[in-house]
């Protein structure tokens, strides 16, 4: 029995006996090897569910939108499960709101080239960090060796080079906010970009204000980013957003000790809402 069969069977059971009211997974898309997220409420739709190496979307954030309808069943891989942990730890959903069927993930692939997606090549946790049951075995994939390679490359540039590089990046940004919408850490009831009274950030589509939007986004997810890489994948303009997210994670690691966000439900408070008396001092 493949993981997909198990998922279909369990989704049907869960919906039939009312344990969950909705189930989130993927279905086949219009094109070959394409999938899209699928939310079903009817057990008879369970056979539409697929689970293969082309399920590129991370599902966690969908849970937030459907959880008001009742308990949600969903398929989780490493990234999905950490997204769920994030949502739970940020009090967006409760643990008992979701029933998680875990699958081991060896990475998903580009539907045309068949190559491993960048986010998966960099992924450190293919297997779910929490789940209620596993469909199939854990993948136990090896850790990629260099978590901060990209960041390091940028750091090695000179200041003018970096400035020019990011100007190029932000020149492309179209301010569609897909990076925000797809991010499991971006769960504010009202996003700062939408707050008119404070007017936190300029709303013109120009290089400077695009940059400041992005900086704010990075600071907001800083110590909570789960490194799922969805922002980068979802970006229609192909901006290297993980270079920013990982820069902050790298600095937090270097300055305040190693950590990885959203690995457990009882994780320590984030690095930016705690402090240590012996933190290094560079502002004297």
């Amino acid at each position, binding site marked *: 029995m493949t993981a997909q069969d198990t998922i279909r069977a369990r989704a049907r059971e869960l919906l039939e006996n009312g344990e969950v009211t909705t189930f989130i997974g993927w279905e086949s898309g219009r094109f070959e090897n394409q999938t899209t997220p699928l939310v079903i409420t009817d057990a008879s739709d369970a056979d539409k569910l697929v689970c293969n190496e082309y399920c590129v979307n991370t599902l966690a954030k969908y849970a937030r939108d459907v959880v008001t309808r009742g308990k949600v069943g969903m398929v989780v891989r490493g990234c999905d499960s950490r997204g769920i942990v994030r949502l739970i730890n940020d009090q967006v959903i409760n643990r008992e709101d979701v029933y998680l069927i875990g699958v081991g993930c060896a990475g998903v692939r580009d539907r*045309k080239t068949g190559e491993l997606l960048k986010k998966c090549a960099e992924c450190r946790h293919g297997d779910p960090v929490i789940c209620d049951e596993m469909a199939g075995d854990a993948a136990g994939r090896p850790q990629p060796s260099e978590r901060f390679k990209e960041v390091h490359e940028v750091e090695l540039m000179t*200041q003018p080079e970096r400035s*020019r590089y990011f*100007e190029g990046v932000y020149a492309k940004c179209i301010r569609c906010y897909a990076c925000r919408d797809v991010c499991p850490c971006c769960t504010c009831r009202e996003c700062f970009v939408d707050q008119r009274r404070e007017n936190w950030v300029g709303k013109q589509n120009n290089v*400077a204000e695009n940059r400041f939007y992005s900086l704010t986004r990075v600071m907001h997810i800083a110590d909570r980013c789960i490194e799922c890489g969805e922002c980068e994948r979802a970006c229609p303009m192909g901006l290297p957003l993980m270079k920013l997210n990982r820069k902050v994670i790298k*600095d937090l690691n270097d300055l305040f000790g190693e950590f990885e966000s959203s690995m457990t439900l009882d994780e320590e408070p984030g690095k*930016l809402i705690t402090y240590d008396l012996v933190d290094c*001092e560079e502002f004297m």
Partner: protein
Amino acid sequence: MSVVEANKTAQVGVPDSWEPKVIAFCCHWCTYTGADLAGLNRMNYPANVRVLRIPCSGRMNPQYVIEALNKGCDGVLVCGCHPGDCHYVTGNYYARRRMMIFKRLLEYEGLEPERFQVRWISGAEAGKFRDTVMSVVEQVRALGPLNLTREIPQFELPAVPDGQEAFNAVPEEVMPEEVSA
């Protein structure tokens, strides 16, 4: 955030009357008091700095720095009590972490380190306040105005990543791959 070379060329166009604008966010209990003391002692420092009073450096939202840079300040200084002396006990410990990360991030994106500085200045350190203001103003003056690139340059449409293409590809015959590329 302009680069140094760009500045140097831009400097040609900088009028002689240009003066750097520096905003200093000062905590009420230490640095603002120190700044007042500098006044009481009739110390002299450049008028390019404007002090904005906040209750505690822990109140310092990075967004204010962004706003200042975006709206035309050439440099930003954030000051608070020395760690251990915070009137609210722990505010500057959090500020220290947040500002260390934020400063690194700004510099990573190419901002000159001199344009955003953080200093701990106590209520007694009027001299340090004066010296800090002088050095920050001079450093920023040397860098020239912060000419943020705003205009989006003309550039070729980037290769549209997958997914997006699927979105455009209705019907597929109409949107052959060459076009989207």
